[in-house]
Structures are given as structure tokens and as C-alpha cells.
């Protein structure tokens, strides 16, 4: 017997209670606190800050806790909160050349001013379990600070190449207008570089990684070199209207990747290196490498290359790389669709009926003949 589906509101409230209980897990174990997440799951926090588009470690950690470790859900929480924040200004461009370096590696030079700085990285760890981490109070290695401070002069590799005229020059457009703002304006096509880089910066890391891999593997003819990857702190400055000069409002951690790519040149231009750029909050090396490959691929059109592969297609890349939008739309399929489905059922049944009738009349006619 059909029972009308009522009580949606009660069911929703009960589901909130259930998910809260599930999130808490075993009540005999101590509850995770937000500071622990911010401090010990730092790379997850960085990813959520990037995809959630707010630099706030504490809120990102809270989002991870509240989302039970679902990083896309956590980014969504940050984004929804972001809508309610007033905007009181824009910072001056941050200068990564003046970054306080924690890590800086170049694949294009054996040595360079400032040297190679490995810093904190999993790169040369063997991926063997460290079973001592099973004990919460295990022995931890201690870090010895170096005798000498790092060189203050750490020029960025593309700047070195640029001085020789071998690197594509990237200058602000004439008039240096305020950049496009994807958080306030709908995407526009053809998309300029400012718009593209913003979308990539908060795009899904997995999606960008897949696209970057496709470019490298054969769906795009890319021959990239890591000019440089750097990680460290830069200061953020704003110019308050009432002061009229820049003041430092704090430091943020950034990862930056500058990918150096070949370019055949054209009739009017000698061959030179072209640049792919990646920048992200926190320690997000995979993200900025993927981003810089995709950034370079998306330059295809303006460099006069054939746009043949998915990663070169700006509408394809930019419309689909936002995981908050993508997961919302994919998951909306679980909402009821029975009205539309009824329409399809009705049509399908009618067509079946018509075909059956047609077959019957033909058979009758044939039998009569």
C-alpha cells in the first residue's frame, strides 16, 4: 500500500545527528582537536585552503574536522563561509623573489646563485612504513640548524633566463588594469591569463594532475623543465586608503613553480623558452607543478599552436576544474527526478505501444493476403 512520503524535515534533522555521531567515531578515543589537524595534517590543510580559496589554517582545519576528512567537502565549507566575508581591499602583488626560502630546487641548472635547498620533502624518503609512528610517543629525529644562513640573494630561474632574452617576456598588459576576479565575475571566454591562473589556483588538484599528465604523456606536445620550485614565506602588504603607503599585514606560505618549455618560434619571433606558472597557498608542490603544465598548455592559442588536446582547450579545462561546483552537480543526481523520469516512462511506453500496434496490423494484413 502506498504511503505518502512525509516527514522530510524530521528525517533531515535525524541525519544531521547521525552524521555527527559517525564523525566522532569511537567515543573511547580522544577527540581530534583543530590545532592538531592544523599542525599535523598540514598538507591536507593547505589543499583545503587552496581549493576553498581562503588562507586560514585554523578554519581549514576546522573544515577538515567537520567534514570527517573529506577534503572536497571541507573546501566547500570554506567557500560557503567566504561568501559572507566583507572585502576591505586588495594586497599589493606579493614578491616571490623576496621569499624567505624553505625549499628551492631547479632542474635546469646544477648550481645557481643561492644554491639548491632541499628543505622539507618526501622526495627522497623511501616509501617504507615508519612503524614507530604507530606509537604516539615514538622517538623523533631532531633537526640541527645549519651553521650558515641561506643566501639572501635567490634569483628566480626565469629571471636569469630572461636577462639573456631567452625567456618569453611577461609584462603587465597596457594600463595594468585591475585583474579579472573569478570570485565576483562569471568566467568569460576567451579567458585571459589572469582569469585562467585564478581558476587553476583553486582548481582540483587531482583534475589538474590528470590534465598535466596527459600533456606530458602525449595529449599535448609539451617538453617541460622545472626551472624552479620554491617554498617559503612572503609578506603581504596593503595600502590603506587613509595612510597612502604600504604596510605589512603578515606572512603567508606559498609554493611556486616556474616551468620552462620549448617554443619553436615563428616567422617574426626567434625561438625562445615559454613559461608555465603555478602558485598556491602552503606546501602544495604537486599542485603547482600540475598547474604550471596546464597553464602552459592553455597558452597554445595565443602562441599560435594548434589547439588539439583537452588540456589546451580553455573552456574544457576551466569550466570543469572547480571541485566544489563539480561535486555539487554530479551529486545533485541523487535529488529526486521522478517528474522528468515519469515523462520519459510515458514516452517510452507510448512508443512501445505504437510499434506493437504497427507490427500487429502488418501481421493481420499479411494473414489476410
Amino acid at each position, binding site marked *: *500500500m*502506498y*504511503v*505518502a*512520503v*512525509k*516527514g*522530510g*524535515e524530521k*528525517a*533531515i534533522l535525524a541525519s544531521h545527528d547521525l552524521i555527527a555521531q559517525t564523525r566522532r567515531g569511537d567515543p573511547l578515543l580522544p577527540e581530534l582537536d583543530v590545532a592538531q589537524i592544523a599542525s599535523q595534517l598540514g598538507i591536507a590543510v593547505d589543499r583545503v585552503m587552496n581549493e576553498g580559496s581562503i588562507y586560514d589554517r585554523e578554519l581549514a582545519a576546522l573544515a577538515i574536522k567537520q567534514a570527517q576528512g573529506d577534503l572536497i567537502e571541507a573546501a*566547500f565549507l570554506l*567557500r*560557503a563561509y*567566504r*561568501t*559572507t566575508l*566583507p572585502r576591505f581591499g586588495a594586497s599589493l602583488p606579493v614578491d616571490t623573489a623576496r621569499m624567505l626560502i624553505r625549499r628551492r630546487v631547479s632542474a635546469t641548472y646544477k648550481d645557481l646563485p643561492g644554491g639548491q635547498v632541499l628543505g622539507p620533502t618526501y622526495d627522497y624518503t623511501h616509501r617504507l612504513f615508519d612503524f614507530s609512528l604507530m606509537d604516539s610517543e615514538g622517538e623523533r629525529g631532531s633537526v640541527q640548524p645549519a651553521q650558515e644562513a641561506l643566501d639572501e640573494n635567490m634569483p628566480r630561474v626565469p629571471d636569469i633566463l630572461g636577462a639573456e632574452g631567452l625567456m618569453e617576456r611577461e609584462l603587465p598588459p597596457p594600463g595594468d588594469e585591475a585583474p579579472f576576479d573569478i570570485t*565576483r*565575475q*562569471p*568566467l*568569460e*571566454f*576567451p579567458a585571459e591569463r589572469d582569469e585562467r591562473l585564478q581558476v587553476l589556483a583553486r582548481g582540483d588538484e587531482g583534475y589538474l594532475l590528470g590534465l598535466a599528465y596527459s600533456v606530458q604523456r602525449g595529449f599535448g606536445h609539451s617538453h617541460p623543465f622545472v626551472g624552479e620550485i620554491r617554498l617559503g614565506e612572503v609578506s603581504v602588504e596593503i595600502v590603506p586608503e587613509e595612510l597612502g603607503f604600504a604596510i605589512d599585514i603578515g606572512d603567508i606560505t606559498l609554493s611556486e613553480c616556474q616551468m620552462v618549455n620549448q617554443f619553436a618560434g615563428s616567422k617574426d619571433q626567434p625561438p625562445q623558452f615559454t613559461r608555465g606558472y603555478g602558485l598556491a597557498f602552503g606546501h602544495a608542490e604537486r599542485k603547482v607543478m600540475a598547474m604550471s603544465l596546464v597553464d602552459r598548455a592553455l597558452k597554445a592559442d595565443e602562441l599560435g599552436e594548434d589547439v588539439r588536446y583537452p588540456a589546451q582547450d580553455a*573552456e574544457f579545462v576551466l*569550466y570543469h576544474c572547480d571541485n*566544489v*561546483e563539480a*561535486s*555539487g*552537480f*554530479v*551529486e*545533485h543526481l541523487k*535529488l*529526486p*527526478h*521522478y*517528474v*522528468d523520469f*515519469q*515523462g*520519459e*516512462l*510515458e*514516452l517510452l511506453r*507510448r*512508443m512501445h505501444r*505504437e510499434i506493437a500496434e504497427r507490427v500487429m496490423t502488418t501481421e493481420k494484413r499479411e494473414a489476410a493476403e
Partner: protein
Amino acid sequence: MTLASSSTSDITYNFAYLDEQTKRMIRRALLKAIAVPGYQVPFGSREMPLARGWGTGGIQITAAIIGADDVLKVIDQGADDTTNAVSIRRFFARVAGVATTEATEEATIIQTRHRIPEAPLSADQVLVYQVPQPEPLRKLEPRETETRKMHGYGEYGLMQVRLYEDIARFGHIATTYDYPALVNGRYVMAPTPIPKFDNPKMDHMPALQLFGAGREKRIYAVPPYTTVRSLDFDDHPFQVQRWSRPCELCGAGDSYLDEVVIDDQGSRMFVCSDTDYCEGRRAEGHVGTQLEQSAGQRLTGGSS
């Protein structure tokens, strides 16, 4: 169902969640949309605390136009009690503290997904549609740069060809929902996934119709008393769905019916998708075949 005023409104957020500048930006887009019926106006769609694809466009429009005196009705699939409709209604009760209702005629703003109420709407009502895909040509041409040109030049031949191909292949136009319509003789519009049964209601509707696509960042509108013509051919005129039997709860023969599977033997019953319409008719004493049976008493119980 009577008016229910919410006492649990949340004052930590601005009225109706969005800040006033954002609401103004949305209202400007709405004015442009009303001035150019059927044209998709890009707007700075904000991230909302509900998921993209779950009605964020409709929610932003409602937030931009709602006032403290408004009475809000939210439906999904024609029903007031489906979970997402409940969730959106709760959202506005919380962030705007407005009165909500399930009665179509009491509402000043009706936010909907996939249906237009059966009861005719009046000039003092606004119908806000949640739009998953505002671009009627998207399935024919994936690129926005191209579809904008097609709208600009009024090049809708591709759509007519698609409808023709359906007729050639199936003997019918095989589009049953989101059936494309020409607004004010100019722009082809996606009426959102409402069944084509509802398309004729859009034509010369006294109520203002607003469409919000949050994820796709587009707003469009059909002003009151505007022509909305479903695309068709002279020899294959537009037709709506019909059922061979009336609603089994209220006996209505003029409403869109949902099919409910009632046992594992393949038995089905057909009932109004518009729950308010169905309940209203039953309150007036109309009785469908199922309700004539005594077991049917359970059906009317528990209405919130």
C-alpha cells in the same frame, strides 16, 4: 496548511544570507533579464552554503528579492515535502525569518525545481526556477563561445533539426522535459527540467518568472504576459503528456501525475505530483479510486 512564521531565525547573518551589495548586483542582473526576455545574463554567482546544482541560483534570486513581509513556498517535483525543498525552506526560515507556506495561493514567492504549480498563478506572485543548465543549445554545442554567437544571430536551425530527427527516427519529438521554447519571439530558452506538460503554463503567465543558474552563473526571465512558444512543426504540433486515468487520490484529470510502485508485483498507482493541489482537492471533497477503499485512510494522515 496555514502560514507558519519561524521563530528560529539566525541573526548572525545578514537578512537572507547575502550582503546588500551582492543582492543589488543580482537585482541589476534581474532587471536586465526582465528587459530582454529569455536572454541569459551572466552574473557574479556566489558560493552558497548549499551545494552547486542543488538550487543555488534559485536561492540567490530568492535571497535578492525576498522581503520581511513575503511568504515563501518551496517545491521540488511539485511537492513541498521532498527533502531538498524542506532544506531550502528551512534555510530561508533561518536566515530571513520569513513566513513559509505550502499553499500556492498564499505564497508571494514560489521557488521551484522541475514543476509549475497546477493552480494558476497571479500577477502579485513571483515564480523562481532553479536551473541546472541555462543553455538550451548546450547538448548540441558544448562551447559557450559558440552558443552565445548562435543566440546573438538567432541561429536556432540546429535545434529544429534535432527535433526533426526525433520525428524521423521515433515518430515523436523525444524531449519530454526541459522542452525548448521561444520567448517573446526572440530567444530560445531552457524552461528548466519541468515536464513539457508545464510549458503552456509559462505562456502569458500573469506572474513574473525568474530563472537562476548558480553554478553556470546565469540569470534569465520571462516578464508577465509574455509569449512563450514551445518549438514544434506545423504537421507535428506541440503536445503535452496525457494519462489514461485520473489521480487516484483526488480524482483530478487535469494534473501531472507521478507513478508510484506499490508492490513487488508491478502494481502502480498514479497521483498528482503537485501535493498542495492534490490536498486542496481532497479537502474540497474530491475522492480518487484509491481513497474510496478503506485502507486509503492512511494516505491522508501525517500531513505536516
